[in-house]
């Protein structure tokens, strides 16, 4: 390997890593406490909620974790603004038409119709999906959660014609989309970052923020080429 090419690159800075830690800690707390309420009718739920200090304490944990997660999300927007101000913001996470091509190529690769994995950029389509799912979740689950946490205060905002269904819609949105988020994280995120043979028991990137240049070349060849040039020469 070229001497000019470093062993590893920093993929996520300290702030991004901290945001991720706050996000997953609150996500787990919200999932654990919320699950007991969503499936209150199931037998283990009462016992499970007792683990979290009973329904009252579990409710407080859920609300506090929800507010911290919302603040974390708002902080992330300022983090992006700051990167943009410093002209460090790359729009690598924006979904592009190439993602559709990558998706098709990836499935062709799975079925043996292509020899090579797609020419992935810094983030694969699944990673982009993962990232934007948080925005969707914040919009749907965060807003409805806020409504449900402060129902009396928020109620004045609802137009009269919505009153026949708005409360049920808010409740359904919160509960069903939370299930979607949990299922998504549990399957895709856990598989990619924990269970894949190369990462098991976990991808330490969440702590170190570093990815080896070798891995980058494997999984994000377009990003590797962007950083180090097609001929392997480091541009930066």
């Amino acid at each position, binding site marked *: 390997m070229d001497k000019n090419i470093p062993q590893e690159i920093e993929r996520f800075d300290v702030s991004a890593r901290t945001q991720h830690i706050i996000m997953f800690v609150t996500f787990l707390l919200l999932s654990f406490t919320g699950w*007991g*309420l969503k499936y*209150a*009718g199931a037998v283990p*739920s*009462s016992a499970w*909620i007792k683990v979290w200090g*009973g*329904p*009252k304490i579990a*409710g407080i944990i859920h609300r506090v974790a929800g507010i911290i997660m919302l603040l974390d999300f708002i902080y992330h927007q300022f983090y992006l603004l700051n990167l943009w101000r410093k002209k460090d913001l790359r729009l690598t996470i924006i979904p592009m038409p190439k993602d559709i091509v990558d998706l098709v190529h990836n*499935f062709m*690769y*799975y*079925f*043996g119709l292509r*020899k*090579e*994995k797609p020419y992935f950029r810094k983030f694969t389509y*699944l990673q982009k999906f993962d990232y934007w799912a948080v925005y969707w979740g914040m919009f749907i689950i965060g807003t409805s959660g806020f409504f*449900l946490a402060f*129902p*009396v205060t928020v*109620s*004045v905002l*609802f137009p*009269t014609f919505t*009153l*026949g*269904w708005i*409360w*049920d*819609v808010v*409740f*359904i*949105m919160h509960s*069903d*989309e939370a*299930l*979607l988020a949990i*299922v*998504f994280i549990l*399957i*895709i995120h856990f*598989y990619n970052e924990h269970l*894949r*043979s190369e990462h098991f028991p976990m991808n330490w990137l969440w702590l170190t923020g570093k990815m080896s240049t070798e891995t980058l070349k*494997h999984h994000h060849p377009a990003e590797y080429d962007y950083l180090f040039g097609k001929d392997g020469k480091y541009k930066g």
Partner: protein
Amino acid sequence: MRILVRVLPFLLFAFLLVPAAGAATDAATCLSCHESMEGSVKVEKEKYSKSVHGSFDCVMCHMTPKGDQHQGLVGSTPDKAVKDLAQEISPKGLKDPIAQAACVTCHPDQYAAYTKSIHGQNIITKKSSDGPVCTSCHGSPHYIEARPSAASKVYLYNIVISCGSCHEEKHLIEKYHFSPLVMERYQESFHGRKLLLGHTGAPSCASCHGAHDIVSVKDPASPVGSVEAKKKTCGKCHPGATDKFVAAITHQPLHPIAHWTEIGLIILTVSVFVFIIVHVLLDIFADIRDRLFRKGGGH
């Protein structure tokens, strides 16, 4: 009357000391037969003695024991209040209306509220056998435990089940035009879920609709009979409850908009679920394939 109840056990005890006064009327005498009987006449001695009424003699409520087998048993004499009530609730078709009416001796306020309630009126005025009497909701008075007790039929979530025993009955829903999904919609609400999990602050049916004095929601006297009444009732737990806030709980079937939102979200969740499962499985197969057949290839 209450004083009489308090001294009654002693009076009965006094009978025992006088051999000529007839057969013994203490609970032990009755239980010597009834604890080993089967069916509705069986009384479980252990549970009875632990109940709030466990120190009572049977004849305090079963004042007029019938049948040859009870010959010689001297019960208490029902007073006018008990007799009148027994007469009023007779459409219910109870085996021993006097015993049911005897509750009034110690619980006069509850009985007074009950007789005016929609439940009491259904029996007393409409002469129907459907309406509940004390034991319908509280269970057998032989086994009533002091509140709060998980065994009480009116404790926390148990009360919802007790209400449901009639309000979920299809023929009663049709006959009395009950809100058809009231139980289901309550059970899936935050209130129902929290109560089921044991949240002591979560409201059961009686918290909002009233208990002994319950009236129809169409009755302006109902605590949930109008928006203004609801604001007051909801406001007990949600201070400052607004018109728009109290619209949240109706126990009515889902509005089509809410229904189709739910269907849409379920479709979204299931499709994402199927997509990611397929994606992960294909990835696993491709990974195994590459390791077996394409040593280092594919990247």
